[in-house]
């Protein structure tokens, strides 16, 4: 058995052990399982938020993008700033309202604020639809990395299956606490690993500064927008930034992490930490542009990182970083599986089927929905891989639509349910139309998600102003809560 396979198996073992330790700490309540009884510490919260947010999309996608499209992925520095800033502005208020009114899911807040059952239903439905494709991407990316790192010893279907088995077991036993603890290890490995590797690999061409000089001499079109293929200009730049940051922060997995936090001070620190870890993209930049100078032909740009690592780095380091990449995928996937199971249990099962469900019933449904949801995603990963890139765009674009009613609930007192619903649904339909109808895709080069957001905002404001305000008692309840927030936090 090669050293690579041993390292990978160790990586699979660590989260299992952590899962069981976390389980021993847990109190067997649904609140503990879903949002850790609102008692998550700052270190765990930071790592779980950033590891959840740093997905396979970022790990593999950043390298492929710098390699083929030039500098457009540099917009990632801005999306980390935007993401951190939104986490402070939106996240802290969501955390406060969650604590005050005992919310567990996104639709708890939005459904309560807008006093609308339809709103609850659509928020949860859109979030589940948006999360499935994004989960598939993680599993494909992770399974693929394990396959390459093991030199093909572990085939794709088995890698994917192992991935699933490990996630299911530790989420099953440990809930969000197990997810957060494993994320600490994954997060640290990915951030430091990729940055270190960037500098290490760029030494092949004489270090970062020499790298830039050689790029200027030989591949100058890689240094400015719209890149060597001429297709990644300004509109790609802003689409990527806004849809990625907003889509990620509105995803159910991040939303649960706003409720789970114990101390509100963390939200003050998060913009700094999230912004700081963007430095890791610099590692991707160095690896990719070294690849541009030294690797002539590559079949699939997503393979760039493994190819460069196995070419220029010692096998142990290469495998460690690739296993870290698989971890990035896993740490997003585990949170998504956990989050979707929470939505199904709380928003559908408890709300519509069994409002008086006991703790044990909630936990059981939560766990079984993990099993079923993971199985569906695994089968989709194996049998419809071609869908991924297209549907993946819906993932972020879909959850991003929630930002409009959310900002409305936090900052616009006049906002009401007809406006929020009109905006949300018209935005989501626009996203679907501009994604799936041939010839309509991404008009003018702006992504379907951005068009969806624009339609969403216009419909939200127009319909809100044309319809009556919310009921007085709900209005006052939230108004008082926001005043309490402003005067205390």
């Amino acid at each position, binding site marked *: 058995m090669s050293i690579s396979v041993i390292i990978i198996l160790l990586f699979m073992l660590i989260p299992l052990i952590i899962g069981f330790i976390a389980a021993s700490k847990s109190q067997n309540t649904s609140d503990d399982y879903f949002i850790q009884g609102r008692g998550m510490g700052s270190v765990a919260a930071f790592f779980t938020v950033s590891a959840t947010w740093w997905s396979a999309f970022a790990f593999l996608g950043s390298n492929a993008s710098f390699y083929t499209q030039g*500098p457009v992925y*540099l*917009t990632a*520095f*801005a999306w*980390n*700033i*935007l993401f*951190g*800033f939104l986490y*402070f502005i939106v996240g802290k208020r969501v955390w406060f309202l969650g604590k005050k009114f005992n919310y567990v899911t996104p639709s708890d807040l939005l459904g309560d604020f807008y006093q609308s059952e339809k709103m609850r239903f659509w928020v949860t439905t859109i979030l589940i639809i948006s999360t499935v494709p994004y989960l598939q991407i993680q599993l494909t990316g992770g399974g693929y990395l394990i396959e390459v790192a093991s030199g093909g010893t572990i085939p794709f279907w088995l890698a994917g299956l192992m991935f699933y088995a490990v996630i299911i077991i530790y989420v099953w036993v440990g809930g969000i606490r197990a997810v957060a603890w494993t994320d600490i290890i994954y997060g640290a490995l990915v951030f430091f690993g990729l940055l270190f590797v960037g500098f290490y690999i760029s030494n092949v061409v004489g270090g*970062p*500064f020499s790298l*830039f*000089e050689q*790029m*200027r001499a030989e591949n*100058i079109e890689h*240094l*400015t*927008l719209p890149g060597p293929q001429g297709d990644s200009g*300004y509109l790609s*730049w*802003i689409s990527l*930034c*806004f849809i990625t940051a907003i889509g990620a922060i509105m995803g159910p997995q991040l939303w649960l992490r706003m409720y789970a936090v114990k*101390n*509100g*001070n963390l939200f*003050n*620190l998060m*913009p*700094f930490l999230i*912004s*700081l870890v*963007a430095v890791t993209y*610099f590692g991707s*930049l160095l690896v990719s542009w070294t690849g541009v100078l030294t690797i002539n032909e590559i079949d699939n740009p997503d393979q760039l990182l493994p190819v460069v690592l196995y070419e220029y780095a010692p096998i142990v380091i290469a495998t460690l970083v690739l296993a870290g990449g698989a971890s990035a995928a896993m740490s997003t996937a585990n949170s998504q599986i956990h989050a979707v199971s929470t939505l199904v249990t709380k928003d559908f099962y408890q709300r519509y089927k069994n409002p008086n469900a006991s703790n044990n019933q909630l936990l059981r449904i939560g766990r079984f929905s993990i099993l079923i949801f993971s199985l569906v995603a695994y089968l989709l990963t194996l049998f419809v891989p071609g869908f991924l890139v297209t549907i993946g765009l819906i993932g972020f674009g879909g959850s991003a639509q929630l930002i409009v009613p959310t900002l409305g609930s936090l900052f616009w007192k006049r906002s009401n349910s007809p406006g929020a619903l009109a905006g949300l649904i018209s935005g989501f339909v626009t996203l679907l139309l501009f994604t799936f109808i041939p010839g309509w895709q991404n008009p003018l080069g702006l992504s379907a998600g951005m068009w969806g957001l624009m339609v969403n905002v216009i419909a939200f404001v127009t319909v809100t102003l044309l319809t009556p305000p919310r009921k007085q008692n709900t209005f006052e309840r939230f108004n008082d809560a926001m005043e309490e927030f*402003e*005067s*205390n*936090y």
Partner: protein
Amino acid sequence: MVNRKLYVFYITATFIVLFMLESPIILIANRVEPFLLGMPFLVFWVFFWWLLCTCLFFVAYKTNWGRHSNN
């Protein structure tokens, strides 16, 4: 007490950084020359605003974003 001016300053400064990175101004910075600190100009531009904003966020945290200490 809430130091309103400080809070508004942090929020405004963040918007300015995002404007520098995401508004059409980026097209003016979209150039190779001059090389600054060994980096192409666009890379330097992004790196500079990112670093500035990261430092700003750190100071903001230290001063509690000009708001209450919440314990």
